[in-house]
């Protein structure tokens, strides 16, 4: 198993005592595409980031097991974590505008990622950069390599991010709302690209999103989170057979083109969803 999480809880201190943002989450991941879906505050991003130990310093993490490829993340040193982050597990965030360095060209940033994780000459890194940009289907790699982030569109920036993350040939890719800031036409291309790279390299993927239909289209398996807990786990193809009222509610409240409704269904949140007694 690439990833093992058992009984993970993440708490933040507040004036009124610790507030639990993630409560007893357990999941495992092999060479597959897993979607984590939930609304804002459901704990989906925290769960994924805990794997890379990228949580705010005040976060209190407890777990029976939190492991990446057998390495216990809870007890790992910063030095050990640095050999995982970027090199063995890449992270792609929502907005490339904030993830890319604004004063370095796209090519320099990809080459830096390449050289940091492999011993190679500048020339080799330069060649690898152009090759990576071609792999993320950029038509004119040389031009994009010389461009600064502000000269790139959102979709182009996200391709550069993906190329940078692919440079060290990681085993796991965590994508946190990678296409939420993009237009629908670009979103489809970026997701197809990620899917293609992940399956060709036999990587594991964790795709985090608020968009349940989208995630189930691109993943093998989907976990639905609500208020820090996993309320349901589904085969992506079995979305229509979701049983938990929260999952069904998430699907029912979406307006669709194919099934017009005069009024949208709204959700009545059952307090029992919080503690898992439902």
């Amino acid at each position, binding site marked *: 198993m690439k990833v093992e999480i058992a009984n993970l809880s993440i708490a933040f201190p507040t004036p009124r005592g610790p507030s639990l943002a993630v409560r007893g989450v357990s999941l495992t991941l092999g060479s597959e595409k897993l979607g984590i879906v939930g609304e*804002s505050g459901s704990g989906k991003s925290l769960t994924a980031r805990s794997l890379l130990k990228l949580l705010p310093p005040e976060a209190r993490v407890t777990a029976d097991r939190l492991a990446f490829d057998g390495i216990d993340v809870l007890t790992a040193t910063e030095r050990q974590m640095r050999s995982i982050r970027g090199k063995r597990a890449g992270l792609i965030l929502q907005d490339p505008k904030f993830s890319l360095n604004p004063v370095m060209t796209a090519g320099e940033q990809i080459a830096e990622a390449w050289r940091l994780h492999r011993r190679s000459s500048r020339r080799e890194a330069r060649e690898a950069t152009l090759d990576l940009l071609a792999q993320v289907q950029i038509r004119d790699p040389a031009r994009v390599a010389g461009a600064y982030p502000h000269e790139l569109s959102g979709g182009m920036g996200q391709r550069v991010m993906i190329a940078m993350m692919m440079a060290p040939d990681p085993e796991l890719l965590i994508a946190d709302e990678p296409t939420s800031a993009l237009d629908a036409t670009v979103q489809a291309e970026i997701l197809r690209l990620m899917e293609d790279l992940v399956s060709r390299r036999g990587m594991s993927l964790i795709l985090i999103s608020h968009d349940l239909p989208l995630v189930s289209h691109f993943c093998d398996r989907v976990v639905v989170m609500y208020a820090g807990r996993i309320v349901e786990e589904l085969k992506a193809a079995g979305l229509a057979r979701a049983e938990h009222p929260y999952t069904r509610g998430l699907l029912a409240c979406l307006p669709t083109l194919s099934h017009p409704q005069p009024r949208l269904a709204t*959700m009545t949140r059952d307090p029992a969803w919080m503690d898992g007694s439902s």
Partner: protein
Amino acid sequence: MDGRFQLIVVENLVIRFGKVEAVQGVSFAVARGAAWGIVGESGSGKSTVLRALAGLNEEWTGRMLLDGAELPRRRNRAFFRRVQMVFQDPYGSLHPRQTVDRALAEPLVAQGIGGADTAIPRALDEVALSQAVRFRYPHQLSGGQRQRVAIARALITSPEVLLLDEPTSALDVSVQAEVLNLLSDLQRERDLTYIMVSHNLAVVSHLCPMIAVMQGGKVVETISAEALRAGRTTHPHTAELRALSTELEEP
């Protein structure tokens, strides 16, 4: 297009930013009590049209009419009494250091309307917010509550027209459903006229029976929600957007 029967008429609207023509001759007309949708991707010019209509951009050529009367470049107070706007991000459009009470009182003061003490509780009621919200600050509210406050503020001076710029794009889907239901209820109760801009075809078609599809600063197709649902599109860009939207609807 006959101005007497249309509450809002936009004719040959052109907007330039430097050398870029962001809006290239857009025309449409919206009848009183109708809901008109504008969809398009980023950079299509959809929000630029809406902002010019709201008077937020004075650099335009063409004609814009409200109730048959030509709109001046600089809008007057009477215009804002009749036309109000709701923005995408309620966190950005509410003053962080003003309470909800102050945010709701301001349009009344600006319009010289009294009776804030009865108008504010009524406005909160209408958008289904509890009275306890009245003396809170924006950061103490959820995203959905903040958007309800923004809608209450837009409606407190009883306008006839609401301009909605991606009103639910920043909200969770369950909250989006509540806000869309609220917008349809309010439209029915108050006979409001809506112009709504969004990138989401399903959201626009839910609220608006008629939709203009924009691409590259032009309206490439005007289509009824019904024809869009049935796939009777005439422009390839509309067909592409429709395909991307319906593709994800089938599990």
